[in-house]
C-alpha cells in the first residue's frame, strides 16, 4: 500500500476531513450559541451549530480533495496556473481533476446516483398514494419524502445536461482543449455532490415539511432538517452560477478560428441560453436562502408577517429565481433535441436562426413571468393580465423550437435509433406539457388547477418528459463517444418503450386527477380518486422498472459486453464524432479551423457519400 497516495489529496482524505470538519463546526456552534440564545435551549435544536457544521464540513471535504492548495499558494504569491497535477488512470475519476472530460464523466455518474435517490422517493410517494387514507409513511415522513424528491430532482437536474454533456462536449464542439476555468469546473461538480449528501442528512434531523419550494413562514417553523434544505439549495445555486459563468466564458473566449457565433452547434446555443439564466438567477436564490437562514438563526424578520416582514417577499424572490430555473431545466433538452434530429434525419438543422432566437427569447421572457405562481395568492391582482400575457408569450419561442424540429424532419431520412426515439418522444411529451401549461397561465383556469396534481403533472411533462427524455437521448447518443463502448440497442429500445408508455400512463391520468380536485403534497385524498391513483401508482412502478432496465443495460454494455464503437457510430458530421472514442486527453492535436455550418448534411457531392467532415480542416500533424 502506498501511504503517500493514501494520505494525499483524494476522496478518502476528503471524507475524513469532511466528517472532522462537520463535528468541529457542530462543536463551535454550541460554544457560542445554545444557552446564550434562549430559544435554542428551549427547543433542543441548534440551527447555528448545524449551519456551521455543514459549512466547516464542506470546507474540510474540499480541502481534502485539494481545492484549498491553489488558493493558499496564490495567497503566498505563486503565479496563476491552468490545471492541477495531471493524473491518469481510473484514480482521476475519484479526485479533483481539471480535465473537462473527466468532470463530465464524474457528473454523469454522480448526478445519475442522485437521480436514483430522487426516483426512489417518487416510488415511495406513489406507494403511499395507493390508498386514500392508510399510511405507510406517517405524515411528517411523507412530507420529507415529497420534499426530498422535489428538491433532489430540481437541484440535481439543473446540471443534468450541462454537467455531464456540456462539460464534456462544449469545448470539443467549439474546438477548444479545455474550459475557461478548469478548477471552477471541477468545483461545481464537487459542490453538487456535497450538497446532495447534505440534503440526504435531513432525514436524521427530522426532515423538512415544505416541499422543494420551501415557502416561508413554514420554513421558519420547520425542524432542523430545514437547514439541510437551505444549505443544499445554496450550494446548488453556487454550483449553478459558477457552471454558467464557466460555460459563457468558454464560449466567448475559447472558440477555435472560424467558429463564428453563427456556426455554433445549436446545443452550444442552448447551453448559452441556459448559462445566462444560471449565472443570474442562482444568486437570487442564494440571497433568498441566506435570508431564510438569518430568519432561522438570528431571528431577523424578512418573511415573518408579525415582525413586519412578508411571506410574499419569499414567494416573489423564490419565483424570480424559480421560473428561470424551470427553463434552466427545459432549455438544454431543446438543445439536445435539435442536435440529435439533424444526425438521424440526415438533414441540416431547419431554421437555425429561428431556433437560436427561440432559445434566447425563452431565456429573456422567463424573467417576466414569475408572478403566475402567485395567481391565487392575493398579491397584485391588477397585474394578472400582464403576467397572463407574458406567460402565454413564452409559447411563441417554444413554438419556434417545435417548428424547427418539425422542419428538420421534413423530407429527412429518419433512422429510428434509440437517441432518435427519445428525441421524438421529447416532441410528444413537451407538446402535452406545453399545452397543459396554457391552462395554468390562464387565470380563470388556474383557479382550479393551481396547486393541484394538474400543475404537478404539467411540470413533470415538461421536466421529466422534456429534460429526462433528452437526458437519456444524450446518454444513448454520446456515452459511446465518452467511453468508447456501445450501449446495447435492443435493451435501449425496450427501455425506451417501457419508459415512454409508462411515463404517459402515469402523468396523463394525473392531469385528469388534478383537474378532478386532488391537491399536491397531500398524504390523503378523496375516495373517488382512488381508482385513478391506483392506476397511476402501478404505471409509476413500471416507470421505475424501466429505469432499472436502463441501469442494467448501461452496466452490462459498459462493464461486461464492451463492444467498441469506433469514432463515428452514428455517421454524424459534427466535430466531436471526428475524434477517437473516447476522446484523447487533449482533444485535438492541433486546434481545428471551422469553415461553415455545423450541419453539413446534403451539401456537396450528393447521395450515399462519406461521413467525413468537409467543413472542419485541421492542419496536417507534423511527424517527428
Amino acid at each position, binding site marked *: 500500500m502506498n501511504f503517500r497516495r493514501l494520505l494525499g489529496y483524494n476522496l478518502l482524505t476528503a471524507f475524513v476531513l469532511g466528517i472532522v470538519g462537520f463535528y468541529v463546526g457542530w462543536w463551535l456552534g454550541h460554544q457560542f450559541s445554545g444557552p446564550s440564545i434562549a430559544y435554542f435551549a428551549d427547543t433542543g435544536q441548534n440551527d447555528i451549530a448545524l449551519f456551521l457544521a455543514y459549512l466547516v464540513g464542506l470546507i474540510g471535504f474540499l480541502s481534502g480533495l485539494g481545492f484549498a*492548495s491553489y*488558493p493558499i499558494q*496564490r*495567497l*503566498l*504569491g*505563486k*503565479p*496563476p*496556473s*491552468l*490545471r*492541477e*497535477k*495531471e493524473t491518469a488512470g481510473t484514480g482521476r475519476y475519484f479526485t479533483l481533476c481539471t480535465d473537462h472530460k473527466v468532470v463530465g464523466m464524474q457528473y454523469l455518474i454522480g448526478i445519475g446516483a442522485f437521480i436514483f435517490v430522487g426516483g426512489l422517493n417518487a416510488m415511495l410517494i406513489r406507494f403511499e398514494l395507493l390508498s386514500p387514507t392508510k399510511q405507510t409513511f406517517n405524515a411528517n415522513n411523507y412530507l420529507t419524502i415529497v420534499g426530498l424528491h422535489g428538491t433532489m430532482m430540481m437541484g440535481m437536474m439543473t446540471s443534468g445536461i450541462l454537467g455531464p454533456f456540456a462539460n464534456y462536449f462544449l469545448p470539443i464542439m467549439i474546438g477548444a*482543449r479545455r474550459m*475557461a476555468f478548469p478548477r471552477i469546473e471541477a468545483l461545481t461538480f464537487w459542490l453538487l455532490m456535497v450538497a446532495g449528501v447534505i440534503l440526504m442528512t435531513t432525514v436524521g434531523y427530522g426532515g423538512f415539511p415544505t416541499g422543494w419550494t420551501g415557502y416561508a413562514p413554514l420554513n421558519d417553523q420547520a425542524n432542523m432538517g430545514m437547514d439541510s434544505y437551505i444549505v443544499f439549495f445554496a450550494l446548488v445555486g453556487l454550483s449553478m*452560477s459558477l457552471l454558467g*459563468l464557466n460555460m459563457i466564458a468558454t464560449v*466567448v*473566449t475559447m472558440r477555435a478560428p472560424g467558429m463564428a457565433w453563427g456556426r455554433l452547434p445549436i446545443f452550444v446555443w442552448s447551453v448559452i441560453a441556459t448559462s445566462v439564466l444560471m*449565472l*443570474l*438567477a*442562482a*444568486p*437570487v436564490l*442564494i*440571497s*433568498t436562502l*441566506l*435570508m431564510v437562514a*438569518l430568519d432561522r438563526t*438570528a*431571528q*431577523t*424578520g*424578512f418573511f415573518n*408577517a*408579525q415582525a*413586519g*416582514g*412578508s411571506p*410574499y*417577499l419569499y414567494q*416573489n*424572490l423564490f419565483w*424570480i429565481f424559480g421560473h428561470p430555473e424551470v427553463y434552466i431545466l427545459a432549455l438544454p433538452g431543446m438543445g439536445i433535441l435539435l442536435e440529435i434530429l439533424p444526425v438521424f434525419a440526415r438533414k441540416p438543422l431547419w431554421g437555425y436562426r429561428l431556433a437560436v432566437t427561440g432559445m434566447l427569447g425563452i431565456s429573456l421572457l422567463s424573467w417576466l413571468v414569475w408572478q403566475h405562481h402567485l395567481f391565487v395568492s392575493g398579491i397584485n391582482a391588477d397585474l394578472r393580465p400582464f403576467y397572463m400575457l407574458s406567460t402565454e408569450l413564452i409559447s411563441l419561442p417554444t413554438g419556434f423550437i417545435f417548428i424547427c424540429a418539425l422542419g428538420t424532419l421534413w423530407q429527412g431520412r429518419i433512422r429510428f435509433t434509440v437517441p432518435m426515439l427519445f428525441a421524438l418522444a421529447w416532441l410528444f411529451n413537451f407538446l402535452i406539457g406545453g399545452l397543459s401549461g396554457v391552462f395554468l397561465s390562464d387565470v380563470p383556469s388556474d383557479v382550479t388547477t393551481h396547486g393541484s396534481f394538474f400543475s404537478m403533472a404539467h411540470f413533470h411533462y415538461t421536466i421529466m418528459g422534456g429534460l429526462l427524455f433528452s437526458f437519456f437521448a444524450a446518454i444513448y447518443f454520446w456515452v459511446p463517444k465518452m467511453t468508447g463502448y456501445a450501449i446495447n440497442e435492443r435493451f435501449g429500445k425496450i427501455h425506451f418503450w417501457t419508459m415512454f408508455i409508462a411515463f404517459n400512463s402515469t402523468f396523463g391520468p394525473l392531469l385528469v386527477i388534478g383537474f378532478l380536485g386532488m391537491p399536491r403534497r397531500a398524504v390523503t385524498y378523496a375516495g373517488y380518486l382512488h381508482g385513478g391513483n391506483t392506476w397511476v401508482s402501478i404505471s409509476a412502478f413500471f416507470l421505475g422498472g424501466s429505469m432499472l432496465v436502463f441501469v442494467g443495460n448501461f452496466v452490462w454494455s459498459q462493464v461486461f459486453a464492451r463492444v467498441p464503437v469506433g*469514432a463515428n457510430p452514428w455517421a454524424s458530421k459534427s*466535430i466531436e464524432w*471526428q*475524434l*477517437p472514442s473516447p476522446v*484523447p486527453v*487533449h482533444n*485535438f*492535436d*492541433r486546434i*481545428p479551423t471551422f469553415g461553415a455550418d455545423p450541419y453539413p448534411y446534403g451539401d456537396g457531392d450528393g447521395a450515399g457519400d462519406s461521413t467525413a467532415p468537409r467543413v472542419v480542416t*485541421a492542419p496536417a500533424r507534423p511527424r517527428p
Partner: protein
Amino acid sequence: MTELADHSTDYGVVAAEPPEVMARNLRIGAHLWASASAFFFAAFLFAYFYLRALDSTAVWRPKHVDPSLTLGTLAAVSLVAAAVLLRFAVADHRADRLNAWRFKGAIVLALLLAGVVLQIVEWSTQSFGPTDGPYASVYLGWTGLLSLFVVGLLYWVETTLATSFRYRNTRRGAPVPAGHASGDGDRSDPDIENPLSLIRSELEAVSFYATFLSGIGIVTWFVLYVL
C-alpha cells in the same frame, strides 16, 4: 485515431496555449462574476423596497433603529477609495511603474480592511439587533454579505500583489522551471511562460470587479443610510 487527434498526444501540445487566452478569461470572468453579484444584491434591494412599501404592521423601522451614518459613510468611502486607487495602480502597471503599483496595492488592501473593520465596529456599537423589524433585517443581512464580498475582493487583490512581490526580482523572459505554476514536479515542460505575464490582466480584472463592488457599496450606502 482520426485525422484530428489520437491518444498519443502529449502535454507539450497544451503548454503551447498562448497566455492571452487566460488573460481574456480572467477579464470576462470578472465581468460575469460582477453580473452574478449584481443579481445577488438585487434580491436585497428588492427585499428593502418591498418590505418598506408594505409596512403592514408599522414596524418597518422603529425610532431606535438608526445605524451610524458616519461609520457607514466611512466604510463606503474606503471601498470607493480603494477602487479608485486600484484604477491608478492599473495605470501604473501599464506604464511599468511596478513599485508605484505595489505601493498603491498595499494601500488598497489597507483601505479594504479598514472598510470591513469599520463595518464590524458599527455592528458592535449600534443600538439595535436583528429582531428589530424588517429594516434591521435587511440592513444586517445586506451589510454583512457586502462585507463578505469585500473580504473576497481583499483576497483577490492580495494574491495579485503577492505574486508581483514574489517575482519582483525576476526578469521578464527568464526561463521557468518545469511544472512551476502547478507545483507538478513530474512535468517535463514549463506550464507557464512567465509568472509575471498574467499579472496585468489579473489586475485589470480585479480592478473592474473592485469598481463594480464600490458601485454596490454606493448603492448600499444610499439605500440603507440616506433613503
